[in-house]
């Protein structure tokens, strides 16, 4: 009872974070709203097993799972494979910063351009960047949300940044 009634106080402060993640994962405002609604109802169901700790990570973990389920169902043409083959060797397959790492990104500092580049990243890389740079979550929280080891979080984040930087360089060339 007390647990149920405090659900709102625990989960709802994270409504914006929930929507932001759902929106970036699904790429659609409508789908994101559905995902957040579903996720919040699921969260209410799971709430008795919530043991305290980071409520935002807990909510986002549920949102993330719901969003992935929605992506699978939708089989959107843009939905990239949910998991890529090799996690651990992936950090070497992109070039390191070139001669001029900064200027390409500064020139690309066009809101629509960056937004498009982020939106086109594979979903598992996009989520790493959204959780780190937009939500400013720690590696530990990101590991909890994505249910991955911290090492994988680090290499995904690295690959995401490399790909985004590569896209920026390609974009301004």
């Amino acid at each position, binding site marked *: *009872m*007390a647990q*149920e*009634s*405090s*659900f*709102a*106080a*625990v989960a*709802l*402060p*994270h*409504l*914006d974070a*929930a*929507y*932001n993640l759902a*929106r*970036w994962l699904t790429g659609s*405002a409508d789908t*994101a*709203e559905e995902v*957040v*609604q579903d996720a*919040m*109802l699921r969260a*209410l169901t799971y709430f008795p097993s919530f043991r*305290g700790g980071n*409520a*935002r990570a807990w909510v986002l973990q549920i949102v993330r799972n719901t969003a992935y389920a929605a992506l699978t169902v939708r089989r959107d043409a843009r939905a990239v494979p949910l998991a890529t083959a090799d996690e651990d060797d992936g*950090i*070497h397959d992109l070039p*390191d*910063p070139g001669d001029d*790492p*900064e200027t390409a*990104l*500064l020139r*690309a*500092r*066009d*809101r629509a351009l*960056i*937004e498009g580049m*982020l939106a086109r990243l594979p979903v598992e890389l996009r989520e790493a*960047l959204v959780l*780190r*740079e*937009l*939500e*400013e979550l*720690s*590696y530990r929280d990101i590991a909890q949300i994505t249910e991955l080891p911290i090492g994988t979080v*680090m290499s995904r*984040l*690295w690959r995401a*940044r490399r790909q*985004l*930087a590569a896209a*920026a360089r390609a974009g301004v060339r």
Partner: protein
Amino acid sequence: MVPPSCDQALLLQAEFDGELGTAQSVALAGHREGCAACQARWTELVALRGALKTVPYHRASPALARALAERLAPATAAPRPRVARRWWREAASFGLGAALAASLVLTMRPARDDGMLAALVDDHVRALQPGHFIDVISTDRHTVKPWFDGKLDFAPPVKDLAADGFPLRGGRLDYLGGRAVAALAYEHGKHPIDLFVWPERGAQPTPPATERHGYNVVQWTADGMALTAVSDLERDELEDFARLWQKAP
């Protein structure tokens, strides 16, 4: 074909993301000084972060908040928390004016401090949960202030405003945004107020007063300390608290 520098790259990234301890940071700083590749990577990490600051943060619409309130209402209609009821009431009675005002507040958010602000409000809400304790329970500032000694690398100013209707209830130690923060618990009527304190040099925070999910936030700086009061009190009452606090000896 593993470049010899790849571990350094992840380490560098961890440093950039504030995930390294002091010893590791120092060791890495030594390496970075002589490593052109790491310097270039660092520059790029900074540029990337700057670029990503321009990307939109998608906030839940008032319609979504309302829809959720309606769907969850039966389950949360239990007679307990004032905080929750307050939130629902606001969500449910979200008129056009309120929606407009809220969207203005939300779009005016400063990108840089928003994460910390969110962390402070979350922490305040957590502290309202049943079973969450205040680390040191005392209405006597001469008890609360020494309690922080040795737990923090700064001495938070502790003032008692009981005479003004804002009695001190105690204090606790929190880790927010990667730093240790002193939280002083006050009360007004039955409304809890958390005053978060940490050392900070520099400009006044903007905006000085804001609202987040039904909680009011008033921030100021004084004597090299950043102070942030969070409560479900009305904004003018919380501003009174801030004013009295600044005037108190």
